[in-house]
């Protein structure tokens, strides 16, 4: 029909290979330059540092290679799973509370601000208390991570459940939809992008939480490795642990992004990749 050809659908944006290069090129170039400067001692000269205070990149790389089995085990068996499990737990709790607050207006005004302010509690205080309750093992770390992830999730999930365009709600009203229908067919799908934003923010928090929780109170994990090596001034290994932690964080972020692309392919942020 002629009407449709005039109003052609927008094409899905496709990324050309040259565009990919343009995206990755500059950061990689900068990385190489930075590492080069670091290796030849530019930062040491700038801040008047000694080698034991700031190891060189090659030393760090060497430490990563030397200690790879320990670092890998720490990351895959301890810190990584703790962060992931805490992220899921905190996310679920946060989402559950958001649903509750969205349904009970009094709680929205009374309890939501309190839940949102939980992220002001410093982690280093929570961690030993968690150990008192849950012991030295991984459960206490997971609890700490869950607490850290809880607040952003409550805030974001609530916004997604509650801040809906009035006409979308009026549509449901006009159809005499039950509150259950409104929840499952409107509020929940609408909230999903917000949930994923909170999860992505949460990956950084989860890594920090897991590391801090391990810092003094663990037997295994990147946090305790970091802490131990700082105490004996073995900085290359300490930095190696940091690098591995950053990689775990990126992997976690990537996993969440992947799940996001699968679950909400329809959302603006997922479908528009190039340009603004």
């Amino acid at each position, binding site marked *: 029909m002629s009407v449709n050809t005039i109003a052609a659908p927008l094409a899905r944006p496709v990324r050309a290979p040259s565009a990919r290069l343009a995206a990755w090129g500059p950061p990689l170039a900068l990385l190489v330059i930075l590492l080069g400067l670091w290796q030849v001692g530019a930062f040491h000269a700038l801040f008047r540092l000694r080698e034991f205070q700031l190891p060189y990149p090659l030393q760090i790389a060497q430490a990563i290679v030397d200690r790879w089995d320990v670092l890998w085990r720490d990351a895959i068996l301890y810190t990584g799973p703790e962060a992931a499990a805490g992220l899921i737990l905190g996310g679920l709790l946060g989402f559950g509370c958001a649903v509750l607050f969205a349904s009970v207006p009094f709680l929205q005004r009374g309890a939501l601000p309190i839940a949102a302010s939980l992220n002001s509690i410093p982690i280093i205080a929570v961690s030993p208390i968690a150990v008192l309750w849950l012991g030295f093992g991984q459960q206490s770390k997971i609890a700490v991570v869950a607490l850290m992830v809880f607040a952003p999730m409550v805030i974001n999930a609530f916004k997604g459940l509650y801040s809906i365009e009035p006409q979308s709600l009026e549509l449901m009203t*006009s159809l005499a939809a039950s509150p259950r229908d409104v929840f499952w067919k409107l509020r929940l799908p609408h909230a999903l992008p917000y949930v994923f934003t909170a999860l992505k923010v949460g990956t950084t928090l989860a890594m920090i939480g897991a590391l801090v929780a391990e810092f003094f109170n663990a037997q295994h994990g990147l946090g305790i490795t970091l802490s131990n090596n700082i105490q004996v001034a073995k900085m290359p290994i300490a930095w190696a642990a940091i690098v591995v932690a950053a990689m775990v964080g990126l992997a976690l972020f990537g996993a969440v992004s992947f799940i996001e692309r699968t679950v909400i392919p329809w959302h603006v942020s997922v479908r528009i990749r190039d340009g603004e």
Partner: protein
Amino acid sequence: MAMGLEAASEIGRRPSGVAVALENVSMTFGAADTDQAVRALQNITLEVRSGAFVSLIGPSGCGKSTLLRLLGDLLAPSAGIIRINGRSPREARLAREYGIVFQQPVLYDWRTVAQNVQLPLEVMRVAADERRQRAAALLELVGLTEFAERYPWELSGGMQQRVSIARALSFRPSVLLMDEPFGALDEMTRERLNRELLNLWSETNTTIVFVTHSVAEAVFLSDRIVVMSPRPGRIDTVIDVDLMRPREAGTREAAHFFELVAEVRHHLREVDTE
């Protein structure tokens, strides 16, 4: 409400009789008898026959959108009686007797076009097979069959609006409330969609209450045009549009068309200077 699709339309479909009746309806926003009170509507009395196409037109502030929302039970009147097929607006809404089309398409981003059309049917617990069939039939009616599996963002504004009309008709309501549905579109698309709307109307025999800013659109589409005046919103005149049906592109160039447009504009000028 697990009401079957047929039952809903049976009740709604009265071959003759009054589909929409307003009697001395007034609407005041804000606390009454205070400075903040806004009298949006005053003493509206109007009857719309079943199967008729009636337009509401008037300058800003005349309350036409408010009136539509009152009909749809999205607002409650401060005074007066409203009857939709003999029922209160609330009963009519719970019985799914009307469909509504806003100026924005209000499609849900996470649903495909077909799923958006099926939304009312899902809410009414219609079986999946029948839902799919109905949606397919309606998409064909509005000419969007190839786009059934696309997402709203892939469609142009005019196409999205057609989806929203298809959705409003999916459960065969007896009354269709339309609030400037083509206001955001360009003229050519608008005229095309006007013709499509008339086709749909003649096939489904729905009563349509249509709010618009465009005089030409009102004259082209309606049986009757209700000219409203603002502050407070009142009915100024009701003009019968006695153009022959079916109305086609050529109708817009007929002499009588221009006469009617001029008549409506005359009344609009009068109410706008008050």
